[in-house]
């Protein structure tokens, strides 16, 4: 059983190499695995689909560069959906470590495909504010007092879209793209106290905890990790063929492309686990035999 000993003592650098190859190859040569849609993503899509050009959605960028590969595609997809339907969007960030940069970059990426969308009329960008929970609660009283100026230094009273948006009552939905606990606060604090529907786009690792909020009705939709983002991309592309051109643009990172890499890596990790357990049980069997 020489092979068993060698397998158990496998240098972890071989594992690192396989993970690197498994990630890089599908990104360089996309496979195009089929993406199936789950109910939590469809629920958020349907919620925005029911809105019209007079409705306002608040998008909160509560993540930083560390989780951008998961959160960026979902933020882009929801923004593209809103702009396709001409639903008005208010952006902000409550995450201190790069949140506002994520909002800037997402907006810049999406606006390339929507040249007729106008700042201040179709969307407004509030920028970053510290104080998370307190800021969120104060926004329920008066957004203009919490954010005296927008991201570009303009007084909120001079931004046409924000002249009619002062509290959560003037909006139809909050979507938080979150990496930490801020997404939970939107659900358990703002939905509970101000009754505005909340949806969260989170990293895969934090998705399980949001199912409790989803089931209790405190959230109306959930995009869990890269899978959730790819589902939303699929829904938007299928409903708005005009958006498909943006998603097929060379060099653009999308969740659908990222799912190829995730599929390979999940499979690889499962194989590692199976191999290690086979070796573990075979080793235990040998040890038991030797004892007898």
């Amino acid at each position, binding site marked *: 059983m020489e092979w068993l000993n060698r397998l158990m003592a*496998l240098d*972890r650098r071989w*594992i*690192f190499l*396989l*993970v*690197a190859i498994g*990630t890089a190859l599908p990104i360089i040569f996309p496979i195009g*695995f*089929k*993406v*199936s849609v*789950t*109910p939590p993503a469809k629920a958020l899509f349907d919620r925005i689909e029911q809105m019209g050009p007079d409705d306002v959605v608040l998008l909160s960028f509560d993540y*930083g*560069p*560390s*989780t951008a*590969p998961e959160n960026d595609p979902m933020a882009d997809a929801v923004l593209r959906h809103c702009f396709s339907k001409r639903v008005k969007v208010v952006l902000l960030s409550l995450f*201190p*470590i*790069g949140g*506002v*940069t994520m909002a*800037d*970059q997402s907006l810049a990426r999406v606006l390339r495909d929507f040249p007729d969308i106008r700042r201040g009329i179709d969307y407004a960008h509030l920028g970053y504010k*510290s*104080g*998370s929970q*307190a800021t969120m*609660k*104060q926004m329920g*009283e008066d957004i203009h007092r*919490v954010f005296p100026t927008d*991201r570009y230094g303009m007084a909120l009273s001079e931004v046409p879209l924000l002249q009619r948006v002062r509290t959560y009552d003037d909006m139809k939905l909050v979507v938080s793209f979150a990496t930490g606990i801020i997404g939970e606060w939107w659900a358990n604090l703002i939905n509970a106290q101000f009754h505005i529907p909340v949806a969260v786009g989170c990293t*895969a690792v934090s998705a*399980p*905890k949001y*199912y*409790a909020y*989803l*089931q*209790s009705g405190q959230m109306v939709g959930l995009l869990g*990790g890269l*899978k959730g983002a790819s589902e939303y991309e699929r829904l938007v592309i299928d409903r708005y063929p005009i958006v498909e051109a943006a998603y097929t643009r060379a060099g653009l990172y999308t969740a659908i492309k990222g*799912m190829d890499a*995730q*599929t390979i*890596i*999940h*499979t*690889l*990790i*499962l194989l*590692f*686990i199976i*191999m*290690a*357990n086979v070796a*573990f049980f075979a080793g235990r069997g040998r040890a038991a035999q030797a004892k007898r």
Partner: protein
Amino acid sequence: MRFLRLQLPLLLTALAGLIPISAFFISENATRVVWMKDRLEKYMIIIASFAILLGVVNVVQSNIRKIERRQKGWPYGAFLLAGLLGMAFCGIMGAARIGPFQGIGYTPDGGRTPFQYGAEFMFSPLQATMFSLLAFFMASAAFRAFRARNVEATILLVAAGLVMLGRIPFGEMILGGHPFLARLTDWMMDWPNAAAQRGIMIGAALGAASLSLRVIVGIERSFLGVEKSE
């Protein structure tokens, strides 16, 4: 002295805790309480900003100490301080709009300010790189530690395997396109997972509520740096 060190902070803590709770339950017509609650929420936003400053001071102090004592990895500490001071310099100069430092975001013509340049082309890729390394360690850890050693570990292993397969298209492919694994994963997330998560959340909320109550009534005083008996 005892008043300043103990009684006044305890009184302030009790008021800061009781006012928002009272305002939540009483009528909005009680304008004085609602006004005080609004004030406290504003103060919280300001205090949160100072908490960031406190963190910066702490990082600077601990790294200066590390460099002075030439502790293991001190060059990393020096690099960290250089980055922190460099970004702070660009940020402060940008906020004051001095020379080429015109703001901390984008310039009116869409160009990047030095602070934005640092955030976008240094900070963002570095943070993304740090997080990306997790994938390698997770794969290695799964190989080395994820063993079906007992019943609990086996249940965890099987559940994890099913969810990992159910969340990728490969799960459907091995069943000839049938979405059984995806549906099973949805069921596992909707029921056993949500039930367990709810239990954890309720437990944590009860713990937080009881700890808050202890702080408000002055039983828990460790945050003041004093013992209960004082």
